[in-house]
């Protein structure tokens, strides 16, 4: 996210938002709303924090009051941000991100510290913006929340892309095979360009190949198959499968 926002240099390549590097955006505060970790001066009030951002971006001050109202911080707006709870800081961060009514939102762990009602409000707000045609890019470790929120998912593990696609596709992107020749099947799948890892004794989870391809590859290799089925599951289960598989691949 920091590379995308020009806060950190990329090891290689460039990151763009709508074909434009962040630094080249004509009016970044109105184009991209950002919420990373809470960045507040503890001695400054929430209202002043937003006023400073609005002033810097040339956003009318009336938006400050509107945003404070919309995130439920109007009553605490003149308190110093250092006295805010984690949830209040998150809401102030969200207000800051929405200040310029941007068409793209980049949010890092937006639900962190929010109570269930706050999470639901956040989810509805973000889904509403997406429904209006805006882009909402969220980073989160709360995978159950991501399932409620996201249309498309990118899974990154230790800095490497693990999976990418629509949530519905990803939830059915893996296959489960039961075979007495597990190690041979792992080799066959790897040779065919798939990614496989062992599970539960004689089980193998494969991604990157569909059921037909797996069945044919096993048939040609003379590997008996006792079960071949789609591996559907929650995003959390899939994530654990994908990432544990990477560990086993390294070990192999």
């Amino acid at each position, binding site marked *: 996210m*920091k590379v995308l*926002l*020009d*806060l*950190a*240099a990329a090891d290689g390549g460039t990151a763009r938002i709508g074909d434009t590097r*962040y*630094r080249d*955006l*004509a*009016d*970044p*505060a109105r184009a*991209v709303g*950002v919420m*990373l*970790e*809470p*960045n*507040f*001066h*503890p*001695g*400054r*009030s929430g209202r*002043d924090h937003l*006023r*400073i*951002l609005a*002033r*810097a*971006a*040339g956003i009318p001050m009336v938006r400050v009051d509107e945003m404070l109202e919309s995130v439920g911080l109007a009553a605490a707006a003149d308190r110093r941000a250092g006295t805010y709870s984690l949830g209040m800081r998150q809401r102030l961060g969200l207000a*800051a991100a929405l200040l310029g009514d941007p068409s793209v939102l980049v949010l890092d762990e937006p639900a962190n510290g929010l109570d269930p009602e706050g999470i639901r409000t956040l989810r509805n707000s973000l889904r509403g913006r997406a429904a209006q045609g805006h882009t909402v890019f969220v980073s989160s470790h709360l995978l159950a929340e991501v399932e409620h929120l996201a249309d498309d998912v990118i899974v990154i593990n230790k800095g490497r892309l693990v999976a990418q696609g629509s949530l519905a596709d990803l939830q059915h992107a893996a296959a489960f095979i039961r075979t007495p020749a597990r190690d041979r099947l792992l080799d066959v799948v790897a040779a065919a360009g798939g990614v496989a890892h062992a599970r539960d004794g004689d089980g193998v989870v494969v991604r990157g190949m569909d059921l037909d391809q797996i069945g044919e590859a096993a048939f040609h290799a003379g590997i008996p198959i006792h079960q071949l089925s789609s591996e559907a599951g929650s995003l959390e289960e899939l994530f654990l499968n994908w990432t544990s598989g990477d560990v086993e691949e390294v070990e192999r």
Partner: protein
Amino acid sequence: MTTWTNLMRAELRKLTSTRMPWAFLAVLVVISATTAAAVIFGTDMDGSKAFIATAADQQSLMAFAANALMGAGLFGAIAVAREYAHGTVVPTFLTSPRRQRAMLAQLAAVAVIGGALALVGAGLTITAVWLSLPTTEYGFMVAAGDVVRVLAASAFAGAAGAVLGAAIGALVRNTGGAVTGTVLVLIIAPPLIIQLASDAASWVPNTLATVLSGVGDEVTTLAAGLAIAAWALVPAAIALAAVQRRDVA
């Protein structure tokens, strides 16, 4: 739209929306009270009050530029280093991804507030001397023009000191380190430089500040002004060059 004027106004708001300026103002009040106490109760070694006996002595007592340089230096260093410590520099750079522009606005804002604080400090000190002199046998002897010079020198030194401190703060990005760096540059390094090159004595910040205040003549006033500006602008230029290239944590 993010214009330079908008950024400058936002930076001024940043500096005035915390308690830090008030803390520095409190220090200025203490300094002026101490000056007043020195006038009322202080004596020379021989028990006389020769240190306030002439207009030059009184002007020297009121010359606030050296204090302004140091005080505003600390102000600038803390103001900018805390931006990094609290992460508030992140929204600043997100609003203005061309970071040099944001940093120029930041430097200009600390110069304005640093200069204003120094002006207030000089005014308080002059007032303290003026109010306390009647308790002695001497009257206020400094000419109006020299009072204005002391005020102007303080404001200029304060602005320059604030820029110097801010530049160190932006380079070090740590409050303790920035304060230490500013003290190092303004207090510890000059005597060491003089040890290495005695001719440099005329060009260290304290000497230059006394020249600006009209109580020293080691160099011309113009040269002193330019040299103090250079003490501020060189680190500022280094900070401006560094700010775009470095990652923001």
